[in-house]
């Protein structure tokens, strides 16, 4: 393992469990914001049927 990889691996282990859980939740919220809420017309049109099906506000 290279030195950089070792440093990376070490820093990864130092991130607490809760911080990692928070990161997972935030990633989910970010994706949800784009697919379900983004006002951009192109994104709205691409995800139109899914927004209707999952009960998100549409139009």
């Amino acid at each position: 393992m290279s030195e950089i990889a070792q440093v990376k691996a070490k820093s990864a282990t130092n991130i607490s469990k809760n911080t990692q859980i928070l990161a997972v939740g935030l990633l989910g919220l970010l994706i949800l914001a784009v697919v379900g809420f983004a006002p951009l017309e192109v994104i709205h049109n691409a995800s139109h049927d899914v927004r209707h099906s999952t009960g998100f506000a549409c139009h």
Partner: protein
Amino acid sequence: MYFKNLVLSAFAVAMLAAISLSIYQEYFITPIILAAETYEVGTPDIIPIVWSPDDGAERTSFSLMANVLICFAYALILSSLMALKNVASVEKGLFWGGCAYLAVFVAPALGLPPEIPGMEAAQIEHRQAWWIMTVIGTIIGLWLLFFNTKIFKGLGLILLLIPHILGAPTAEIHGFANSNPEAIKTLTILWEEFILQTSIANALLWLIIGAGTGFLNRKFDSSFNTQGEINV
């Protein structure tokens, strides 16, 4: 690494949920949307200004993609909440999925039922704001009800009720944009069918996400243990 495990298992669960949802959608939901669109009124765009997928394979593909993304987002959020409580069994996962269904679909649908195209509704920003408030309120409310002591349980109940006491934003004239009585009759039937089918589809997707997350947590993730220690 813990983060990677959670993301990978969320993705696997999301793929299963998205494929199931897409199949259900293709047969039971999209036909209703397409039927409702034939009654939409307004000036049709002769040259569409903004891109939208063509009906057929292209539209289905984009819906599949959006389903994968939305299921992935749902799975990431649910698995992060389940990880906080070290939930790692199919039975518990089903329960968590059921609660998520109540919070993300049922609670907002009580004020803003899923709508078919061509319906008059309040300004979109107001509906989105109410949706967000209701979902967050219901999640925190359920969390307090299940995991806290008596006083906080009361607060949880209040949080569950507040959005519905305030009421969802509604259009001044609620109904269909099409004023033809025959069209209204057909659209009303389509709308009722749409609410039923989306209720089933969303229950299906949340139960798959909940059970799948519980199953994968138990099977693959050795970092789940009662002491909450980290095995990275």
